[in-house]
C-alpha cells in the first residue's frame, strides 16, 4: 500500500514538471561554434498559446530595434554579421492575442573567435595529403631520383619557333594573357617567358611583350631583363619592347592585332588566361603565317586555340611548362605530386559514386564541407 502512495506521488510530481515545462519559457543565446566570431545562435522555448513573436536587438545607444524573422513563429534565429567580443543584448516578446497576454524575456551574448573552420576539415586533409605528396616527391628528386616526364610538343616547339624567327629576322610576340598578376596562370606564363627570353637572347632575336596590366608589365620586364643577363647579353635587352597597352580587354586585343599585322612576328606565344578574345588573336596570327603556340587553363577557350595554333598547351601543361623547360629535378619531382593528386581525385570520385549509390550521403557531405 505504501508503495502505491509513493508511486502516486512520483506520478504527480512528473505531471507537475510537465505542466511547468509547458508554461515556463526560456531564451538562450550561445556563440556559433567554428566561426570567426561573427554570429550568435538565439534559441527560445515558449509555452503554447502564443501566436506572435517580436525579436529585438539593442543598438549602440541601447535602444531596442525590431529584427526580421523568416517565419512568424520560429524557435531559433542565427544573428550574423556581428563583431567578435562585443556584447549584444536581445529582447523576445511573445503575444497571446486570445488572452491579451504577453511575455517578455531578455538575454545577452558575446560572439567569440574560434581557432578552426570545422567545415573546412576535408579541404585541410586533402591539402595536407596533396602537399605532403608534392614535398615527398621533391625530396626524392633532391636525393637524386630521376622522374619521367612525358613529351609536351608545344614546349618542344619553342626552339623551332625561335629558330624560325631568327632565320627570318623577325621578332617573337609573347602575350601573357589578360589576367592580373594575382592569377596563377599569369605567373606560370611569366615563368615560361623567362625561359623563352633567355633562348631568344642567345639567338639574338627580339621579343615583344605587350601587357594588359601595369603590375604584369613590371614583373615581365624584370623576368626578361634577368633572362638577358643570364644569357650574357644584358646590352641586347630593350625595355621599350615590353610595354603596357591598355586595361581595356578589346583595346588590348586591337593593340596586339596591330602589332601582328604591322610587325609580322615569326612566332606568336599566347600563354596565360584568355577569354572571348582568344580566337581573334589566334586567327590574326594565323593570317600572317606565324608559328603559333598557345596555352591556357581556361578550358572553354582551348577549342579556339586548337583550331588556329600549331601547338596548344592544355590546362595543367601550362603549369608544368616551367618544370619541363628548366628540367630542374625538384620541379619535375613536384609534377609527380600532381599525378598523385590526380590519382587521389579519381579514387575519391569512384568511392563517392559507390557510396552515393549505396545511399550513404555522409562522404559527399563531408567533402562538400558540411558540419559547420
Amino acid at each position: 500500500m505504501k508503495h502505491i502512495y509513493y508511486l502516486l506521488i512520483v506520478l504527480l510530481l512528473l505531471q507537475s514538471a510537465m505542466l511547468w515545462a509547458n508554461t515556463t519559457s526560456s531564451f538562450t543565446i550561445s556563440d556559433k561554434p567554428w566561426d570567426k566570431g561573427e554570429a550568435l545562435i538565439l534559441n527560445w522555448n515558449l509555452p503554447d498559446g502564443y501566436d506572435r513573436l517580436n525579436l529585438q536587438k539593442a543598438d549602440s545607444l541601447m535602444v531596442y530595434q525590431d529584427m526580421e524573422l523568416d517565419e512568424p513563429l520560429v524557435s531559433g534565429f542565427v544573428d550574423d554579421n556581428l563583431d567578435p567580443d562585443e556584447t549584444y543584448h536581445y529582447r523576445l516578446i511573445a503575444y497571446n492575442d486570445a488572452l491579451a497576454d504577453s511575455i517578455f524575456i531578455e538575454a545577452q551574448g558575446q560572439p567569440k573567435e574560434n581557432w578552426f573552420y570545422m567545415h573546412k576539415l576535408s579541404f585541410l586533409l586533402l591539402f595536407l595529403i596533396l602537399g605532403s605528396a608534392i614535398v615527398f616527391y621533391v625530396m626524392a628528386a633532391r636525393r637524386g631520383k630521376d622522374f619521367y616526364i612525358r613529351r609536351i610538343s608545344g614546349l618542344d616547339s619553342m626552339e623551332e619557333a625561335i629558330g624560325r624567327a631568327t632565320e627570318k629576322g623577325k621578332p617573337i610576340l609573347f602575350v601573357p594573357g589578360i589576367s592580373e598578376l594575382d592569377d596563377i596562370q599569369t605567373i606560370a606564363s611569366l615563368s615560361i617567358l623567362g625561359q623563352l627570353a633567355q633562348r631568344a637572347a642567345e639567338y639574338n632575336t627580339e621579343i615583344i611583350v605587350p601587357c594588359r596590366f601595369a603590375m604584369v608589365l613590371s614583373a615581365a620586364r624584370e623576368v626578361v631583363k634577368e633572362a638577358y643577363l643570364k644569357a650574357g647579353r644584358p646590352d641586347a635587352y630593350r625595355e621599350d619592347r615590353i610595354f603596357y597597352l591598355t586595361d581595356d580587354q578589346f583595346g588590348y586585343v586591337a593593340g596586339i592585332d596591330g602589332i601582328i599585322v604591322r610587325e609580322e612576328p615569326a612566332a606568336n606565344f599566347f600563354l596565360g588566361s584568355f577569354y572571348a578574345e582568344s580566337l581573334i588573336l589566334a586567327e590574326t596570327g594565323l593570317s600572317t603565317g606565324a608559328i603559333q603556340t598557345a596555352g591556357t587553363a581556361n578550358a572553354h577557350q582551348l577549342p579556339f586555340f586548337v583550331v588556329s595554333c600549331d601547338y596548344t598547351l592544355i590546362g595543367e601543361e601550362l603549369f608544368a611548362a616551367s618544370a619541363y623547360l628548366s628540367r630542374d629535378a625538384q620541379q619535375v619531382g613536384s609534377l609527380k605530386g600532381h599525378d598523385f593528386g590526380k590519382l587521389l581525385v579519381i579514387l575519391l570520385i569512384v568511392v563517392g559514386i559507390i557510396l552515393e549509390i549505396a545511399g550513404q550521403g555522409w562522404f559527399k557531405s563531408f567533402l562538400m564541407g558540411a558540419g559547420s
Partner: protein
Amino acid sequence: MSVNTSSHTERRIVFLIIFLAVMVPLIFPIGWGSEVSPIARMSYDLIDETPAGKYGLISFDYEASTITELQPMAVAQIEHAWSKGQKIIATALWPQGPQMAEASFAEAKRNPAYADKEYGVDYVNLGYKVGGIVTLQAMGSSIRDVYPKDSSGKNWDDLPMLKGIRTLKDLAWVSSLSSGVPGLKEWVMIAHDVHNVPVTGGTTAVSAPGFLPYVNDQKQLHGLLGGLKAASEYEMLIDKKGPATTKMDAQSVAHIVILLLITLGNITAFRRKRAKANLTGGQNA
C-alpha cells in the same frame, strides 16, 4: 600555322557571306521563335522567387565591346527585379562597368512601367573598384568600407536604400555579367562559396561552356545566361521584345550559313583528297 593564298581568298569570301548573313535579317526580320533552356530559367527563377524589398546586386564586369550580348541581360534583369519590387545595387570589377550600369538603368527606365524608379531609393550605382577578387573578399567584411561613395561621389549615408546593407550576406542574389577576368568566377568563389549568397550571371557565348560546370548540385551558379540566345530567352520570360530578341534572327541565319560553310568545306576537302588520290594513282601507273 599558316594559310596559303587560296585559303586567304576563301577566308575573305567567308567573311563577306557572314557579313550578308548578319546584315540582311537585321534589316528584314524573320521572327523565328526560341525555346527557354532550363539553365536560363533557373537564373530567371532566382530573381522571380526573391521577395519584394530584398536587395540584388548586379556586377557589371564587362566593357563596351561586349554590350551586344551582355547589355540586354542587364536590362532584362533590372526590369525583372524592379517588377518584383526589389532594390538593385550595381558594382563593377571592370573600369568601364559604371558606364555600362548607367546605360542599363537608363534603358530600363525608358520602359514607362519603371520610369518612376528613383536613384538612391530603388537602385544605386556604386562604381568600379580595382583589385578583382580581393575587392570581393573585402566586401564580405564590409561593402561600405569598399564603397564609401557611389560612382557620382555621393556618400553611402546619403543613399537611403543602403541603410540595411552591411556585407555580401545581406544580398538576396548576385548577378555578374562578365566577359573575362575578374568576373563571374570570382563572384562564385567569394559570394557563393564563402558567404553562401546565391549567384547567377551572364557571359558571352564563347565563354559560356566554361561556366557550365558551376551549374551543379551545390548551385555554385544559380543558372547561367550564355550569349545573345539566353538574353533573348530571358526577354521572353519577362514578356519583353527587346534588343536580344530582335538580333536573334541575325544570329540564327549566321549559324545556318556557318553550317552550310562547314558542308562546303567538307565537299572541297573531299574533292581535293580525290584529286590528290587520282594524281598519285596516275603517277604510280
